[in-house]
Structures are given as C-alpha cells and as structure tokens.
C-alpha cells in the first residue's frame, strides 16, 4: 500500500453507464469489498458515457475521443489520484484516450480544442487503471486472502476473463503489466484466494461477441455456446468474469442458445467481486448483489447463507 498510515489508497472512480443498469451487481459488490481491501473510491462527479464500442460509428472518432476527454478533465479537477474503472469498455476507451493524449501532441491539441467548448482542459497527467490491475498490483492476493472469513469451499469456478480487460493493455507498461493476453491467471487467483476451486478452463479469453452479440446475436451465439459449454464440461458451478458485457451476454443468451442448439444450459455467471463479497462474509443482497443475477448462483447463495446463519 502506498499510504500505510491511512491504510487506504484513494482512487477516482469511473463507474460507467452499465453500473446503473445491466451491471449494477458489479458496481455494488465492488464498492462493498473495496474498503476491506484498502481502496477508497471517489466517484468522478458528473461522469459521462465513454462511447463503448459503437459510439464512433455514428458520432465520429474525435467526438468519441472527447467523451473520455471530458471524464478525464473532470477527474483531474478532483485531484491527481489514479482513475479506476471496473468496466472493460470504459477501461479500453478511457485508458486508450489517456495514453493517446499523453503521447500524441496532435490528439492532445484536438481534444483540448473540443473540451474548450465547456471551459475544460486536460493535459494527460493522470493514470487510468483497471480494477483488476489495481487488485493485482496495489492490493495483492495476500490482502484478499486476509479478508476471507467464509471460504468458498467446494465452489467450482470457471474464470472467464473475456477480451478487453486484458487486450490490448494488460501486458503493456501503462497497463501495469499485470497479466498476459492469452493465458491470464489473475481471475483464477482471485477465485482461489476466496477459497474456491478454479477449474481448468480453455476459453478464458475467447470473445463473447461484445456489442455485436447485443445487436446481432444470430452472428455470435455459437461463440457464447463454446464459452458456456467448456465451463459445463469442466464441472463448474459458476462462471466468474470481470466484464459487464461478458456477464450479460453469457448469462442472458443461454435460453436462446438452448433453443438454437438443443442444449440445456443454466449456468450462473457472476462477477469476481461478488465472489469476494461472499467470501468476506458480507451480505448476500446488500453487498454481493446476488439477487441481480438472472440465473441464480445457487451454490454461492447457499455459501452466503451459511456465513450469515
């Protein structure tokens, strides 16, 4: 910890749009476990959307870039803490734009010209970090283990990382060099630190189809099928993921996959932070937000009840 006196390090938190709807359970559980891990989250005041993976098509490249520019300018007004986000798309855009503003004089000038329309400016002197990178590099597995009072004994977890949480930044210097692109280990390590068993799982960084799955699932259901199938074959009780869109796609399309391919999938998909909240002995609803999963993570709910009872 960089601030041993206070025991907590402050980060400027960018929750992103999904935190208010489809990934409410990521936001809720992350905010719940953060203080136990020495993370103090200060939300960016009046943040806006990052543009996700589709904004540029209609909006254009510079307007899309300017979305992150405004968030970064707002974050900088609040201080020089590292910016933390838990959403893969928010991270991809915000980190990517931040690095471009740092390295490319022309981008910096153009973004600032646009920001000038609202009397904002940003010079690129913040760092934008993924929550998982912060957990690996700043918090560490020992501290996570140290908070576990309700080990997730017997819970078999398929760690599904997805794409943008690790690609294209996880192995770069600015991305904190916290894991690899193809065989990341951090998620399995989180699960095991919580006392669960991380099963061998091949499609760790396979693609769920991202936003293409949202608007044209007919093109991508076969991708999601492989992701669920491998977890079922590995005997997993749950799939755990860090990504809001992965969580949503892999969970909500299981019925459609069953219909199309004649399978009978009904496998819960949870966030790593929900595993942590249960393992830390916190409340199943108020902290772990287990009621927000469309497919109830039955075993995890039982483990949470055991701790409460």
């Amino acid at each position, binding site marked *: 910890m960089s601030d041993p006196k206070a025991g907590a390090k402050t980060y400027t938190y960018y929750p992103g749009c999904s935190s208010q*709807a489809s990934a409410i359970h990521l936001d809720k559980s992350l905010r719940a476990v953060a203080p136990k891990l020495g993370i103090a989250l200060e939300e960016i005041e009046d943040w806006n959307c990052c543009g996700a993976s589709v904004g540029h098509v*209609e909006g254009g490249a510079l307007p899309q870039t300017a979305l992150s520019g405004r968030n970064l300018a707002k974050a900088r007004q609040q201080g020089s803490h590292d910016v933390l986000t838990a959403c893969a798309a928010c991270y991809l855009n915000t980190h990517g734009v931040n690095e471009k503003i740092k390295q490319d004089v022309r981008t910096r000038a153009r973004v600032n010209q*646009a920001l000038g329309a*609202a009397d904002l400016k940003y010079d690129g002197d913040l760092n934008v970090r993924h929550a998982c990178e912060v957990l690996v590099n700043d918090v560490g597995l020992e501290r996570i283990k140290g908070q576990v009072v309700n080990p997730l004994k017997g819970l078999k977890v398929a760690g599904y990382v997805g794409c943008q949480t690790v690609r294209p930044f996880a192995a770069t210097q600015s991305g904190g060099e916290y894991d690899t692109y193809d065989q990341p280990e951090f998620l399995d390590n989180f699960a095991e630190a919580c006392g669960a068993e991380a099963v061998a799982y091949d499609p760790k960084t396979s693609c769920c189809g991202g*936003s*293409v799955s949202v608007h*044209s699932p007919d093109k991508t259901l076969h991708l999601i099928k492989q992701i669920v199938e491998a977890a079922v074959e590995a005997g997993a009780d749950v799939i755990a993921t860090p990504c809001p869109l992965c969580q949503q796609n892999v969970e909500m399309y299981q019925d459609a996959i069953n219909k199309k391919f004649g399978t009978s999938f009904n496998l819960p998909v949870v966030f790593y932070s929900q595993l942590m909240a249960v393992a830390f002995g916190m409340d199943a609803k108020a902290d772990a937000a287990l009621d927000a999963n469309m497919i109830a993570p039955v075993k995890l709910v039982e483990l949470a009840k055991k701790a409460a009872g």
Partner: protein
Amino acid sequence: MSAAPAAASAASAGRRQYDLGFARWVYQHVEGGDKVAMCMQCGMCSGSCPIGTAMDHGPRKLFMMIRAGMKEAVLTSNTIWNCTQCYNCVVRCPRKVPVTAILQSLATVAVKEGYAPTQSTPKFSKAFWLSVARFGRTDERLVTALYYFSHGLKEGIRRALENLPIALRMIKAGRMHLGLPHRAKGAADLRAILAKAEDIERAERAGGKPS
C-alpha cells in the same frame, strides 16, 4: 451522396470498382491507416479472428484490397461491421498494425459516405449515440427500443416480443432502469464539446475527402 445498397455490386451502383487513390487516402486519413502499408500478409489477424468465418474477407485480405484500391468492395464488406473488438489480432500482429482502429475508422467512413444503409451496427450506433449525446449516458432500455424500431414498426414489435423474456428477467433482477433516463448534469456542456469535436473533424475532412 448516393446511398448504394450494401449488397449491390459496384457496377450496378454506378461506382468505380477500383480507385487507385484509395490506398493513399487510407494511409493519410484513417487512424492507423499508414500502418496498412506495413502489413506483410501473414494472416495472423484473420487466423486469430473469432468471427472470421462470418466475414466477407478477413482483415489480411481486406488490407490487400485497400492496397489494390478496391474502395467499393472494402467499404461494402461486412468485415468492418462484424469486428467484435476482441483485440486478438492487435496484440498478435508482428507488424503492429492497429487492425481494430483501422476497421473502426473505415466503419465511420462507410457510414459518412452512405455505404451502409442496411447494416445493423450503424443502426445500433445511431440509437446509442442519441442517448449519449442527449443525456450524456447510455440508457440501455432506450437504446435497445430505438434500435429495434429502427427496423420499422412491424420488425420492431417482433424483436421486442422476441426479447421480452430477457427484458422481464432483467427487470426482476433489478438491472433494467425503469425511471427517467439517468443523465449527466453537464449534458449541455457535453453536447457543446461534441459539437466542437464534430466541427474540427468536418474542417479536417474538407481538406481530405476520399475521392
């Protein structure tokens, strides 16, 4: 701007099939476009693509087509719409070609030039951007509804009914926002920033429109 149906052949749309200035235009005006010249046609990108089999042409072939000046075929290919942005190709490319950024830029060009009137991604992006520019935030419920009904009333109703079970489960799980859209208080400021950014790009484009 003549809007050619995406499926129509270049000849029937009355456009030139080859435009020898296209490669140079891409090198100069598409983000990362200069790196297309670096492509050595190894195929790592196409081989790494999770959705490559659903593409008209993999990225490798598309880059060769750019260099051959096949503007029509490039801008009407579904390659630019099917990219899921998994970044496999980007981290694996031995020549560090920013494949995803190039496909994104080409998508924006294709929309601006009227090449993609029937594609799903631009329809979805239009619905998405409406929410972002108006409220400063994505309202997933609003974006989904606008997208469904961008296909027409009948198709909109069909899609809405088809996905109703998912919607109901999302509501039950507390993951569909039901009140007025969340908004950034500074949405008006954001709109001013976006308008300025559009102005800047428009001025830049005036100096370098694809022929």
